[in-house]
C-alpha cells in the first residue's frame, strides 16, 4: 500500500477504533443513555431526527452566513483601509481587538433583548466572533509584504492600486485564508451558542430542547451535525486555498531518493 493512502487512512481508522471502544465500555458498564449515550444510540438519533436536524441546520447556517458575510466584507475593507491610511490603523486596530474581548456569551441575552428572538442577535454574535480574526490576519498579511518589492514596483511607476492588487493582496492571501479558516469554525459554533440564549429554531435551540428532555443522544446528534458542518466549511476553504495560493506550498515531490539496496 503506498504511503499516501496509508497516511490518509490513519485518522478515520483511529476514530473508528475510539467509537468502538466507547460503545463497548458504555454497554459493559450499563451506563444510562440519558447520561452517556453510546455511538449506536447517537447514530439512531441522527437518523430518526434527520429532517428536523436538517431544518434546524438551515436556520443556523443562515445566521452564520449573514454574520460571516458581514465580517468578510467589512473586515476586509477595514484591513485594506488600515494599510492604505496609516493613521486609521492606530484607531481601528485596538477597536477590533476590543471586539474580541467582549464576552460574547454574556452579552447575547442583551442582544436578544434588543433585537428579539430572530436571526439578528445570532448574526451579531457571529460577527463579534469572526471580525477580529479576519481583520487581524488580513491586516498583518497586507503589511507583511516585502518593502523592497514595493519599492521595485514604485520604481516601475506603478500606482497604489496596482501595487495593492499585484503584490500586497496576493502576498496577504495565505494570512487571509488562515483567518478565514478560523472564522468559519468560530462562526458555526458562535451561531449555535447564540441560539442557546433565545431562539425558535436552529441547532443550538435543538440542543437546548433535547437537553431539557434528557434526550442526551439527541444532544450528541446535534453536536455531531455541528462538527460536520464545521469540517465541511473548513475543508471547502482549504480546497479553495490550495488553488488560490498553490505557490505558498511546497510542490508535490515528483522525484524521490531511490531506496538503498539491502
Amino acid at each position, binding site marked *: 500500500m503506498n504511503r499516501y493512502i496509508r497516511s490518509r487512512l490513519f485518522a478515520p481508522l483511529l476514530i473508528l477504533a475510539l467509537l468502538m471502544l466507547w460503545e463497548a465500555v458504555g454497554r459493559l458498564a450499563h451506563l444510562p443513555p440519558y447520561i452517556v449515550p453510546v455511538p449506536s444510540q447517537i447514530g439512531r438519533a441522527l437518523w430518526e431526527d434527520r429532517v428536523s436536524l436538517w431544518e434546524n441546520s438551515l436556520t443556523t447556517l443562515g445566521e452564520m452566513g449573514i454574520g460571516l458575510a458581514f465580517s468578510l466584507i467589512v473586515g476586509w475593507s477595514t484591513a485594506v483601509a488600515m494599510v492604505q491610511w496609516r493613521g486609521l490603523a492606530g484607531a481601528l486596530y485596538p477597536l477590533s481587538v476590543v471586539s474580541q474581548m467582549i464576552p460574547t456569551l454574556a452579552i447575547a441575552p442583551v442582544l436578544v433583548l434588543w433585537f428579539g428572538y430572530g436571526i439578528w442577535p445570532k448574526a451579531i454574535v457571529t460577527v463579534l466572533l469572526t471580525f477580529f480574526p479576519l481583520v487581524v490576519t488580513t491586516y498583518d498579511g497586507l503589511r507583511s509584504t516585502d518593502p523592497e518589492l514595493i*519599492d521595485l514596483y514604485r520604481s516601475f511607476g506603478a500606482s497604489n492600486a496596482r501595487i495593492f492588487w499585484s503584490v500586497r493582496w496576493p502576498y496577504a492571501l495565505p494570512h487571509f485564508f488562515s483567518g478565514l479558516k478560523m472564522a468559519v469554525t468560530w462562526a458555526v459554533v458562535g451561531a449555535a451558542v447564540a441560539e442557546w440564549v433565545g431562539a425558535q429554531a436552529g441547532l443550538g435551540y435543538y440542543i437546548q430542547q433535547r437537553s431539557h428532555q434528557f434526550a442526551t443522544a439527541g444532544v450528541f446528534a446535534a453536536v455531531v451535525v455541528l462538527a460536520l458542518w464545521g469540517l465541511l466549511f473548513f475543508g471547502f476553504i482549504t480546497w479553495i486555498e490550495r488553488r488560490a495560493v*498553490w505557490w505558498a506550498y511546497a510542490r508535490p515531490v515528483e522525484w524521490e531518493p531511490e531506496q538503498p539496496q539491502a
Partner: protein
Amino acid sequence: MTPALALRQVSFAYVNASGERWLVLEGLDVSVMPQTFVALVGPSGSGKSTLLRLMAGLLRPQSGEVLRFGQQLHSPGSVAYMPQRDLLLPWKTVVENAAAGLQARHVPRKQAEQRVRELLPAFGLEGFGEATPDQLSGGMRQRAAFLRTAVLEAEPLLLDEPFGALDALTRADLQRWLLHMWEQMRRTVVLVTHDVDEALLLADQIFVISERPIRHTQTFSVDFPRPRTYEVTLTPDFLAYKRAILVSLQEGRA
C-alpha cells in the same frame, strides 16, 4: 553634454523618532554621462544602496537635487532600477514576472509579454518563459530579474549588486554575459558592487566611496579597449588599477 544623471550638492540622512540623524550623503556632486558604464565601489554600509535609491527617485534628497538628463527627478518611474534580490513573484511565470514593469508603465499585457518573449534567448532563458521562479536556478532567476528591468528600456539602468548573492562561477558567467549585452546595447548603467574585479571588468568609470557620510567620490577612468574579454583581468594594467582602487578604499578608512 548633459549628464544622463547628476546629483548636485545632495545631502541625505535617515532620521529616527527621537530626531537623531544618521547622515549618509553630504553635499555630494556626481555626474554620469550618457552611454557610460559606471561602477560604484565602496565598503559595506557606506551608502551605495542609498545613493542608488536616490538616483532611482525612491528616496528624496534632504537638500540638493537629482537631475535626469537635466530634468529634476520628482518621483520614481522614469529610470530602470534593479534591487539586490531578484524579488520575482512566485505565482507568476518568468514571462509574466518580466512583463510586470512594462505593464506598470501602461504597456498592454499582450504587447509587454511579446516584448519579453523576444528577449528570452538573449537572456539565456529560452524555453523557460512559462516556468515559475522556483523551477529556476539562482543564476537564471537573476537573469529573469535583469530582463524585467532591461526590457523597460529606460535610462539610466541602476543595478544594485545584481550578482552579489551568487556563487563565484555563476557570477563570472553573468559578468561575461552582462559585458557582452552592454557592449551591444550601450545604455547608461550605474552598477553598485563591492567587487573591484567586477567593476574593472565591466565599467568605463569607477566611483570609489570610502567612508560614510559620502562627501565626494574618487573617480577612476578604466580605458581597457572594448569589446573586452575576461583576459583583461590577467593583465598588469588590471592589477595596477586594482591596487590603486584598493589603496583609495583603504585611505578613507584610515
